């Protein structure tokens, strides 16, 4: 699957553009991270790609065909989209939610067959969460819910997954495990295009990375080239240090000696150093 976003502009009807001239390309089964500060329109961009919002101008094509010409069913066979936070209303068992991923593979008014349910179960097994199969979706933890949505997306058998800040609600350990999972999906032949607030994750995956700002895409390329102290400093508006730890590179935000500005205040005598 080849996704091309070209000059996309979008506003919520307030006259203020959320997206302006956004352009990048993505090809599955690559992994790609979209970095950008709050409010730069990362989620809006994904919603435009999924057709949930219509851009004011610009084109979005998948395999050369504009996304708005895709039926929802054909779109589902190309990409699965997982939004930031899903607040479920009904207590469906997890296996039912995962089986819903099969909807685009079954007849319009048919029910999923036993094979579909088994296929859904296989995805839970693949993610190691088959013990959740009968549990109500409303009663599992946020991290488990995230994995269940990934299982539904896998049951959908798309060429790529669009993930909107998949690590936003995960604890420190689960965030890391999620990055490992992304690599596993990639190895399985499924592309992952995700927005993230963690430059570390892009560096860890060393994947294709696009840095977004108000005026469009600032830079696109492999993470080790694009994720630089200058580029990050510019979009987040704080000093960023990138340094090696072992064989890996990590990002540390803020001034290295005086990140919270305590020394200066102490010296000028306005505040006592705590």
């Amino acid at each position, binding site marked *: 699957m080849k996704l091309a976003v070209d000059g996309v502009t979008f506003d919520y009807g307030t006259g203020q553009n959320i997206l302006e001239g956004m352009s990048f390309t993505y090809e599955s089964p690559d992994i790609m991270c979209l970095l950008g500060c709050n409010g730069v329109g990362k989620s809006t961009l994904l919603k435009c790609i*999924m*057709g*949930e919002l219509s851009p004011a101008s610009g084109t979005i094509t998948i395999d050369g065909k504009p996304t708005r010409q895709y*039926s*929802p*069913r*054909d*779109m*589902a*066979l190309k990409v*699965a*989209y*997982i*939004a930031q936070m*899903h*607040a*479920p*209303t*009904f*207590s*469906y*068992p997890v*296996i*039912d*939610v995962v089986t*819903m991923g099969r*909807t*685009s593979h*079954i007849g319009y*008014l*048919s*029910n*999923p067959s036993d094979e579909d*349910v*088994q296929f*859904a*179960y*296989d995805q839970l*097994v*693949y*993610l*190691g*969460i*088959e013990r959740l*199969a009968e549990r*109500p979706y*409303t009663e599992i933890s946020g*991290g*488990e819910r*995230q*994995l269940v*949505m990934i299982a*539904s997306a896998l049951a*959908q058998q798309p060429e790529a997954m669009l993930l909107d800040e998949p690590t936003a609600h995960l604890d420190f*350990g689960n965030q890391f*495990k999620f990055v*490992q*999972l992304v690599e*596993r999906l990639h190895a*399985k032949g499924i592309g992952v295009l995700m927005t993230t607030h963690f430059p570390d994750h892009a560096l860890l995956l060393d994947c294709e990375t696009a840095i977004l700002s108000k005026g469009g895409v600032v830079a696109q390329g492999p993470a080790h080239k694009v994720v630089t102290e200058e580029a990050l400093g510019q979009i987040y508006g704080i000093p960023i240090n990138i340094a090696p730890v072992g064989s890996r590179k990590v990002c540390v935000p803020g001034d290295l000696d005086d990140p919270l500005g305590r020394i200066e205040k102490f010296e000028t005598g306005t505040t006592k150093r705590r």
Partner: protein
Amino acid sequence: MSQDSQNTESASPGVASIKPTFKPKRQPWLIPVFIIAPILCILISLTLGAFEISVPEVIEIVWCGITGQEFTSDNYKNPALAYSMVWTVRLPRVVVSCLVGAGLAIAGAVFQGVFRNPLASPYTLGVSNGAGFGAAIGIVLGLSTFLIQGSAILFGLITVVLTFVVASRSSKSSVTLVLAGMLISSLFASLVSLLKFVADPTEKLPQIVYWLMGSFSGVSFEKLLMILPLYLISLVVLIAFRWRLNVLSVGDTEARSFGIDVTRDRNIVIVSASVISAVCVSISGIIGWVGIVVPHLARMICGPDFRKLLPVSLSLGACYLCIIDDVCRALTTAEIPIGVVTGIIGVPLFLYFIYRKKVNW
């Protein structure tokens, strides 16, 4: 996230060893229980009344009617009277109360599902007030009971159309639709009040008030036939959409990602559920609570899965309204309006179930 996610890595693809299979839990008692219950309710209801007819005789009379035989019995001086008592007086009423109960319950389950809101009911989009207005205008104009019913159906459907027109001017969200429904509903409620105000207070006004409270007292097979085609079509559509209803009830974004044309499919099921509600209201008047209580009870029994929820709601709704109508006609000779009784019985029943077993969302 799970600790054992790494362990399964090596075992997953390629290896043709033991593949874990999924065995779903089934509730095999569901189908027989929910087929037999309404049949029992109907048979028992047919025996109730001043004229005593026992259950075996009721079965015999119904059987004779279906096969076209003449009913003969030594127990009665006039078997033909027993026969017509069952066939022309009791059966239409019992069948209609079951159908209305089933229809309202199914519509309620569908509305709660697509709006993902426990307070949604068959009347959310204003069908009840629309149909009420239709009936009231028919009464004021002095139309026949058939035309009053027809007018109720017509205005019930007009309300739905108006709601969609109002909502289509704005975004595609289901909240807009509910808001539009509330607006149109209030408009028709005011119009009904206006009609009540201008109606002749000795004759027409009581008739309007009584109609709005709901009753099965005047039903006949002819009235039933008038609603049956629309009723059955909508019912078939809703049952055909049972899996899509599941997906829709999870969330708009998720449903869209799973490959569903959310706006189109949601509109199809909402229109079907509204049509069913409109035809039910047209024959029975406004009967509240069935469409809210019964789907909740059904969900407690079988969970939110529409593949089970729709049949269970149908069966439960039929039994519930059939029994309540029995109470209405058997308790006093004056016959209490059913819309009043559903509330008086429905609310405590609902509270009881909330306390006994949490209403799950």
